[in-house]
């Protein structure tokens, strides 16, 4: 694997991390904490949305985030011939 390829691989990896971690931050710290009062004006079923994000919603998103990461990285590994 050439130096350029290594750099390109790492750059794409970092890009995925920025995006996924931004979502991670927004659903927990954003929706569940900083914007909780605003979101509590909206309802999901019998719960206030901000409360729901703090106690359930963020956890669902976390699980999905990891599986999306696995999918993206496996694809990236394949693209650079790094899969095992």
């Amino acid at each position, binding site marked *: 694997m050439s130096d350029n390829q290594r750099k390109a691989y790492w750059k794409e990896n970092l890009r995925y991390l920025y995006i996924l971690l931004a979502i991670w931050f927004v659903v927990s710290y954003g929706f569940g904490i900083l914007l909780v009062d605003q979101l509590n004006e909206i309802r999901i079923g019998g*719960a206030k949305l901000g*409360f729901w994000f703090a106690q359930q919603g963020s956890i669902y998103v976390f699980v999905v985030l990891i599986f999306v990461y696995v999918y993206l990285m496996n694809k990236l590994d394949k693209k650079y011939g790094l899969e095992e």
Partner: protein
Amino acid sequence: MSVLTWTYIIVGLTFALYIGIAIWSRAGSTKEFYVAGGGVSPLANGMATAADWMSAASFISMAGLISFMGYDGGVYLMGWTGGYVLLALLLAPYLRKFGKFTVPDFIGDRYYSNVARSVAVVCAIIVSFTYVAGQMRGVGVVFSRFLEVDINTGVYIGMAIVLFYAVLGGMKGITYTQVAQYCVLIFAYMVPAFFISIAMTGNVIPQLGLLGTVTDGSEMALLDKLDQLHQELGFAAYTNGTKSMTDIFCITMALMAGTAGLPHVIVRFFTVPKVKDARISAGYALLFIAILYTTAPAIAAFARTNLIHTVSNQEYASMPEWFTKWETTKLISYDDKNGDGLIQYVANPQINELTIDQDIMVLANPEIAGLPNWVIALVAAGGLAAALSTAAGLLLVISTAVSRDLIKMQIKPNISEKNELLSARLGAAVAVVIAGYFGIHPPDFVAATVALAFGLAAASFFPAIVLGIFDKRMNREGAITGMVVGITLMLFYMLKFKLGKFGGGGPDDWWFGISPEGFGTIAMIVNLVISLTVSRFTAPPPAEVQAIVEDIRIPRGAGDAIAH
């Protein structure tokens, strides 16, 4: 059959299962002892990680805590799950590629320094011991409540079981026992939850029941009903909470970074064959954890509503059987201050007549919901599985830190494989005895130090590992100064505001209004800033270390964990 008979049968069967697995999977080499030979399937590793991670506190206390904290309880729910995203994205795949056995291994090699390695060993031991003492205590408490034996006898039985399979099987034995323990604990947690969800909301899935309406015919949303009840009794609305936003933010962050930095969790990702497996097994782990963690807030709200309905302004004489039963264990106590024979359960401590321990919410749930005796016995087995699995994982970290990171890497590098394995086993045995001692004579600071363990991990390991992977320029000087300053700052703040040393102080004196539980976030940021600053003013790491960093960023060729 009585509850006691059922408990003996179910707990006995699960213990026989754990011991059987330990004999079948005993370790023959140091590699099997440290990382289960590196051949664990990602799915099994996910289950084992989940059991390793979910302690007696998660199983017994968390739903009750949330029940009393309402919205504020979200710090535990988000903090203890969000850390897995950090673990999966920032640590697990790279540490697996690095391919050694322990966290101090990584710190020592990446920062080309035995000082760094020793700092990491000390941190790992402090973090793990503070944690494990609480687990042994948890085993004793479950035994005493369900099997009607003395708490200390319970601790001895727990010690014997853990000693047997941790010493015999090492990581290999622990991994497969934890898979079984996960199945026991999740089954024990979910069965009562399904029944209670149906009773309260008519929906069998507790996660959906939380969003549902109460079944008393009023068509009111459960959470609205609970808010209303709370306000009538003078409590803050359940869905609003009372902590400041800054504090909630910092506690959540400290718990997340602490989770990702806990050595007994990180080391689990050394046990799978490939980098790819490390990624996916973090996903499985969080999925298995999320099943319990999304059920907990539902149980919390159901139990709270149920409790207020059952006791508030009712006659003491007409309380159901479980009330008097748990009264004898002192988990509920009633003091008829105004002598009217009714139970006043209100926020005002002058008038309030009822004190309730948080643990009752999970432990008494099956009785409150009128479930059959075998379900009650199942909860006992689940609590024990949760406590034992976490204790075993922590003990392994302690024994590995001693046998590998101290003896093999520093004191006696030419030790034979056989002797290293022997010293690992002895280390595990000594660690069990010390943990048992703390379980029987719990120091006052045990409760305080569980939060300390997360703060310490967040303030020390997390920045050092992340920078070690993502900042090639990070050097020995930067990482060591950062870890030492971060951990010292954290220890100082906890000692001052939690244990009253250095002049002590109350919530009004907290820096920036941040509680000791949340201070790990500040200490972590200080660590990051200091590491980065110091590293830029000192020599860059040698070329071969920079090559290691390049190498761990590329997933291919993780191969076996390098033995020696």
